[in-house]
């Protein structure tokens, strides 16, 4: 059988005994077996293979040899200090093709105009920009905008992505990254922003030399999830990923909380930007009679505790949710549709006294009320456990051993939430390099696809087809609507639609049928095909 032969090419080895033990049907026996298996050591080659499967998006051909030669510990240290690793120039070239990635949100809104800006220009409330290149785009889009408002155009002329004709969408989808960047900027600028962010994520996962950093960028974005398709988040998410998440993936946890709390993307996604002191409504209505905001919105406060820090069992009450929401009143966004900066609006802040998890926050405070809450939550023991468990679930096993979680949580507390130190504790633990962890995790769709691109050394000129494949497996990138993010439990991905999508991706990859993704068929077609088989689905 062809596939079986192909699997032998695969350097990944499959431990029959391990798998049989992992799926014993009796629950009680399973628990003791599992505990024992987290004590069973890996062989040296297994350790290297395991580290590559967990701390990267998958091994490239030759990676195992490189790591063995360098020494596993040294390699891990490098990955934990990504700035010490020179970045892959090929990746840098790819990213340079996508101008939206480096623009400030203000420039993004200007150069890739939002509907609000186009409307403002059409109504004469805003002037055309002076830069001739940008002006040219504006003129065309404004004309179309006016025509659409006046009902003069048919569906086909509509510049919005939704109305883009099927044929046109297919053509745009098959373009190279470079061609699409140019084309979308002209016909559907907002779509360019979303497309480039999505494409970049796959380029990075497939090509970056700083793999652990990339894996963690995915982990933390998902932990502090925002939904790209919610209104202004279409052009706020680029900065969110770049400025709030990425600089902090191996930093201090409280910095991540603060960066996300003050990011326009999160303020918009969880509505905090509209939350004001209950009595502030009357005050500002006198000044701004049309002000929409008229009270507290507790959405962010709740998710901050439930999902970002303490965890749902972290011991907070509905009263705490309300008190935290009061602390964050006035944390808002300046001009969400035209540049979007964080702003603390003093006069809509609730200045009363608050009590958060038993800690009194004195009356008369301003922005420091919210900062105090971040401090309380980031250093809370429940947070140390919650974050440690979540990391262990992503990196070790669906049901990680409590002993490991406790050790990680102790490091978290001792180091004031130093993520690098917590990762260090986890990777150095016997549980990490154990039979209990080895090949125990089902790959997420992103891990499956990025791993396939890496293992086949695919040449990439367009990663949108890969993004579409990942979406078809159930994980549309940057597009998880709920604040929970995607589950870190691998079982989430075990179902027939997802399995079929994985199989079909493997078939298409092996036959070079994905536009913009090319493998050397002589060397890798069989391996690519084997990626639809059961063995490839675990890491």
């Amino acid at each position: 059988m062809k596939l079986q032969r192909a699997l032998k090419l695969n350097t990944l080895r499959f431990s029959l005994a391990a798998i049989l033990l992992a799926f014993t049907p009796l629950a009680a026996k399973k628990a003791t077996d599992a505990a024992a298996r987290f004590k069973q050591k890996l062989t040296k080659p297994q350790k290297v293979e395991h580290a590559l499967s967990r701390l990267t998006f998958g091994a490239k051909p030759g990676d195992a040899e490189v790591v063995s030669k360098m020494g596993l510990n040294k390699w891990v240290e490098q990955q934990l200090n990504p700035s010490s690793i020179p970045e892959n120039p090929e990746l840098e070239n790819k990213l340079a093709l996508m101008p939206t990635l480096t623009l400030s949100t203000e420039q993004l809104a200007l150069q890739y105009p939002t509907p609000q800006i186009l409307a403002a220009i059409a109504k004469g409330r805003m002037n055309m920009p002076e830069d001739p290149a940008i002006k040219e785009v504006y003129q065309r889009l404004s004309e179309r905008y006016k025509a659409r408002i006046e009902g003069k155009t048919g569906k086909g002329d509509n510049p919005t992505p939704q109305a883009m004709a099927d044929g046109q969408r297919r053509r745009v989808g098959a373009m190279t990254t470079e061609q699409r960047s140019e084309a979308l900027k002209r016909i559907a600028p907002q779509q360019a922003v979303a497309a480039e962010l999505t494409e970049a994520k796959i380029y990075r996962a497939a090509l970056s030399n700083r793999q652990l950093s990339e894996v963690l960028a995915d982990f933390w974005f998902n932990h502090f999830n925002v939904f790209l398709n919610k209104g202004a988040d279409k052009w706020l998410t680029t900065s969110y990923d770049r400025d709030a998440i990425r600089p902090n993936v191996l930093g201090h946890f409280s910095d991540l909380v603060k960066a996300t709390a003050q990011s326009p993307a999160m303020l918009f996604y969880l509505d905090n930007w509209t939350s004001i002191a209950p009595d502030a409504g009357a005050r500002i209505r006198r000044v701004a009679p049309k002000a929409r905001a008229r009270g507290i919105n507790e959405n962010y406060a709740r998710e901050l505790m439930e999902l970002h820090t303490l965890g749902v069992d972290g011991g907070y009450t509905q009263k705490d949710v309300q008190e935290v929401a009061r602390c964050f009143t006035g944390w808002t966004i300046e001009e969400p549709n035209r540049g979007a900066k964080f702003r603390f609006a003093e006069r809509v802040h609730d200045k009363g006294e608050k009590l958060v998890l038993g800690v009194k926050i004195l009356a008369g405070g301003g922005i420091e009320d919210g900062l105090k809450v971040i401090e309380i939550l980031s250093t809370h023991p429940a947070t140390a456990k919650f974050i440690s468990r979540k990391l262990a679930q992503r990196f070790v096993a669906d049901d990680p051993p409590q002993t490991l979680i406790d050790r990680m949580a102790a490091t978290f507390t001792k180091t004031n939430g130093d993520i690098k130190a917590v990762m260090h504790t986890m990777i150095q633990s016997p549980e990490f390099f154990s039979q209990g962890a080895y090949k125990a995790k089902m790959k997420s769709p992103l891990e499956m696809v990025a791993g396939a691109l890496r293992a086949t050394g695919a040449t990439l000129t367009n990663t949108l087809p890969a993004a579409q494949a990942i979406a078809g497996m159930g994980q549309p990138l940057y597009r998880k609507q709920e604040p929970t993010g995607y589950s870190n439990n691998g079982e989430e991905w075990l179902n027939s639609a997802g399995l079929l999508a994985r199989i079909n991706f493997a078939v298409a990859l092996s036959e070079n049928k994905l536009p913009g993704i090319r493998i050397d068929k002589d060397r890798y077609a069989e391996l690519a095909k084997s990626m639809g088989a059961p063995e490839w689905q675990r890491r």
Partner: protein
Amino acid sequence: MFGIGASPIWLERAMAATSSKKILVALFQRGAADGLNIVVPHAEKAYYASRPSIAIPRPGANEGSTIDLDGFFGLNPNLSALKPIFDAKKLAIVEACGSPDPTRSHFDAQDYMESGTPGIKATRDGWLNRTLGVDPQKSPIRAVSMGPVLARTMRGTEPAVALNSVKDFQVRDKMAGEDYMSRYAASVDTQLKGTGKDTFEAIRLLESLRKVEYVPANGAVYPNGRLSQNLKQIAQLIKADAGLEVAFADLGGWDHHVNEVGATPFIGPLANLLREFGGSLAAFYQDLGPRMDDVVVTTMSEFGRTARQNGNRGTDHGHANVMFAMGGNIAGGKVYGKWPGLEREQLYEGRDLAVTTDYREVLGEIVTHHLGQRDTSRVFPGFSPKAQPGLFGATSATTKRS
């Protein structure tokens, strides 16, 4: 394993016993739908007092006013497509339903509602899966969860398939398909082996359906949208008589913290969702025609929303909500459940509609009277029904207003 070319027993059985087969379709409105603006208590003064700018106007001649049902409750005008079904006594509404668990976390509440065990996180399977009897000879598509992931409520010991689209449910390279099938069959990874088996069996069964374009019957027109397309495919599967027993679909986006209702009730995010929701349910009903006698569709959402509007013309996380049940032998045309009232002292924790009917009473009654399982303790372990709403006319319970 199953042999290629052999006629599987389940296929014969599925073909033989079709008309009597009862089917349950469960729909989840994710994000905590605002039940009070969906089935409007228009005779409640407190409703209008609590929602000065987002209440749906009292029934009347004006466009956008509530469609009266019984003098007390009425439908949001975006659900007008459901009124004829209610009038035909095929649609029942149960008010003030919910979970005994007080959580206002979307994640936990959805988890509890899908597992059918409020407050217990360790439950691994979902209630919908537990409605399936143990019978290895049943159809591979007896349990179908629409979408790219298997819904929590469908997980469990009985095989269930996640289905994105009937049309695309195939391995694109037929030769490779056979190879993969044997790889999965030979796998020592029991989880993947099981999922693989379910998948390849379903692929084979759906093969004939893929070849013809599905045309809804009775002039039914499904509106645009994912829920609508999913209901259409569920209708297709039901009519194919391929052994479907339970189906699940969901519609997200009900978490309306901001600007829930626009300048008129026809504008805004709630209006858009309700038009899809009502329009697709009505199209499904019309499409199935008399076959609807074998099918019950029930709807749920993890919790309701605050009685009062919040500071942003939206609503925050609340407690009780409304459930719909359509088709089968449902004694429709009635709003069931005990209405707890919206005056401040009647509200749960001073802010939310109180739960008077455990959601398991509603689902359990459907499991008993529609699926014919007298004992629901397997489906809802640890729960014994006390006050089922009487959706099948078995009891005389109806809405009691306080």
